[in-house]
């Protein structure tokens, strides 16, 4: 992404999008918070005030105070530290599962959309089967096979998200296929792979990016739900949903055990959604103007 200062008005589509994005205050806020969360996740070890797994059986259920801003949990662990460290789990689950689903979706969708015919039919009917099961239910079933845990949770989410990405990719390919430049490309003997890679993909990218941003948000929510019913990340790993689940037994006397993880999930998902919304508007300006 090279752009010089002189070229400020921005002729590249990336710059244009970026400029539009910057005009949208909500999207900017979303972007900043998202970036902040990513930084927190990367530097978690240096930021967190206490080791996230340090139990102190003398200081269980401490209410929020100066030493423990968000209080401590049932084993006396600092909730703020756990939330900070837990951002790694939640963000990684979101990002990796969506990346996985995107790759899978692009491959399947491209094959289906580009080749058409029985290949398309076969792939789409298989996706129909997956889509006849609501995402949450499919994730529950898949995590039952794989067993609970961090890595398996990612795989379960990936599998449940592949169908929607595939469909999207296929639809864009069908759209782009009609375009003239493809005819031109194939007339000069470009290979199918090359056509998809060089011409089709870049042109269908923008809806995929928007979908991906939103899906990261959705994946974080579903992962939290899975952990909450005991099928996702397991304690003592401080995934946010798992923290909610283990704090649940104490909501009456110590609501801070569920309050803070919940708010954290909300902020993370909200910022991703705000960013994704802005991105969509920026990429598809006809709605905003």
């Amino acid at each position, binding site marked *: 992404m090279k752009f010089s200062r002189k070229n400020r008005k921005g002729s590249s589509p990336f710059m244009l999008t970026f400029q539009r994005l910057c005009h949208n205050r909500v999207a900017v806020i979303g972007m900043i918070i998202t970036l902040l969360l990513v930084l927190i996740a990367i530097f978690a070890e240096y930021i967190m005030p206490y080791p996230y*797994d340090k139990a102190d*059986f003398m200081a*269980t259920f401490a209410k929020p105070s100066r030493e423990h801003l968000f209080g401590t949990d049932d084993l006396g662990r600092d909730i703020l530290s756990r939330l900070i460290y837990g951002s790694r789990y939640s963000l990684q689950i979101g990002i990796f599962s969506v990346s996985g689903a995107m790759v899978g979706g692009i491959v399947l969708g491209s094959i289906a959309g580009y080749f058409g015919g029985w290949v398309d039919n076969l792939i789409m009917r298989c996706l129909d089967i997956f889509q006849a099961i609501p995402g949450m239910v499919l994730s529950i079933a898949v995590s039952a096979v794989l067993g*609970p845990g961090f890595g398996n949770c990612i795989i379960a989410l990936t599998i449940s998200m592949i169908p929607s990405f595939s469909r999207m990719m296929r639809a864009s390919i069908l759209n782009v296929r009609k375009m003239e430049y493809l005819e031109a490309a194939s007339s000069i003997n470009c290979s199918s792979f090359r056509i998809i890679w060089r011409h089709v993909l870049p042109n269908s990218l923008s809806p995929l990016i928007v979908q991906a941003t939103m899906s990261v948000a959705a994946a974080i929510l579903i992962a939290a739900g899975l952990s909450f019913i005991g099928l996702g990340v*397991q*304690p*003592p790993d401080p995934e946010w949903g798992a923290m909610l689940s283990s704090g649940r*037994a*104490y909501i*009456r006397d110590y609501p801070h055990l569920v309050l803070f993880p919940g708010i954290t999930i909300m902020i993370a998902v909200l910022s991703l959604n705000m960013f994704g919304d802005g991105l969509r508007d920026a990429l598809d300006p006809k709605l905003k103007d």
Partner: protein
Amino acid sequence: MRKTSMFKVLSLVLSAAVLLPGSVFAEGSGVNMDEQTVRIAIPFDPSTMEPWATMGDGRIDVIRHVYEYMFDYEKIGGDLLPSIASGYEQVDDTTYRVTIYDNIKDSAGNPITADDVKFSYESTIEIGNQAIGVNTIDHMDVIDDTTIDFVFNTTAAGAFANAMTNTAIVDKEAYEADPDHFASNPVGTGPYVMDEFIPGSSISFTKRDDYWQSEEDCARLSEANIGHVIYKVIPEASQLTIALESGDVDIAYYIASSDTHRFEDVEGFHLAALPKDLAEVILFNCDPSNVFASKELRQAVCYAIDSAAVLQTVYDGAGGVCKTYGSPLFADFNEKWNEEDYYDYDADKAKELLAQAGYPDGISVRLMTDNSPVHTRMAQVLQSMLSAAGINVEILSYDGTLINTYRFDPTQFDLYIANKSSFDYITSVWKFSFDQVAYKGKTLNFYVDEDLQKMLETALDAKTHTEENIDAVHYALKDLALGYGICYGTNYIAYNDKVSELAIDFKTRVVGGACIFNPEAFE
């Protein structure tokens, strides 16, 4: 719907007042207890009323209302109290002659005879879901309508008592005639009949007006002191508490220890604390390929665990610290063990043994646990305790089924958390973990030791079930440290003023209908 239930109540009142001498009119107050309802909250779904299905938690809670056993245990490993059976005598080492009452009738009016008893046991054995209690029966001989001989294939201590206290007795023809096998329309000899069962939600019982047993011979748990009993399924501990506080239910079990202060010394509520027979233990993977094949390493872990602190964190200190591999509630538990050292917490010794075992710089092990809240917390407590001693713990958390599958696979874990109990003796608790016959020549945790097996078999046999022999096994197990008993918790049962005395069976479950009630509180 409402009309019929009104009618039912009315007819019940009439029949109770006119026909039954046993109807409970409280003196002074005008309350007819046969019209009243007690509501009890339980955390698990009874799931089915089939008499011989798997003994899940919710089922144990409710089925004593509808079905009766030959005898009831007075307490774990205690005396046998007559229920269906009126008495027994031991004929020889393995044969027991049991007499049953001659007037037993189930709720459909079918008489119960020795043939039905035989059928009930044979079906239980054949279905195989409750194998633990009945697999010691070799065969049965019906002598006459009220007499039956049980012949056992073992002389193990507790075999007879175990067999007598777990199998529901039903009428053969009625059972065979129901395609559903009583799963949703049970017919039993108990003092109540089931009205409605909404799986996952509630189950309700109504008092029989034709219960077969006379008032003076009635088993304590077969008393019917109230007209209606409703069990509500509330899985979440905090909500169980709320239900009792808000008056939705009158009795609630398994109150979390963190919630007991809401009922202890609180006007209108009462709290019963019953120590659990279920001990929290860890079992080491003693397979020769595993690091815990080293006795020193096992002992190092035992010394590194501060059982009292575990008890404090996991059960808020309510309960006790184990002094053997099992809880002390069993009759054959030797009081003197309480005075002796049982790997009492000693960090220095742990480090010393760790070095002796060849790991002076520490070691990493995999601790397997199920994902129940208690064990999840316990795993985390153990993790931090062991790490202080230089043992780094990775927690593998699985659901119950996976644990039950993986525990037979020596490659899956290094040690795991379990809870262990038995219906009768501490020796049986040991048997369920360390009997090398049951698990193809090894203990449950892959250890092979002929001497231990011989000692265990001697202690298990009713003829040699002596203090000396039991002691021998205890000390052998303690020295080997194949497994380590950590602590046992407390069951809290809270109830309101409507109940004046709980009826509790040997498994520490409340039998709702047999409780004694306080009629004034129903006014």
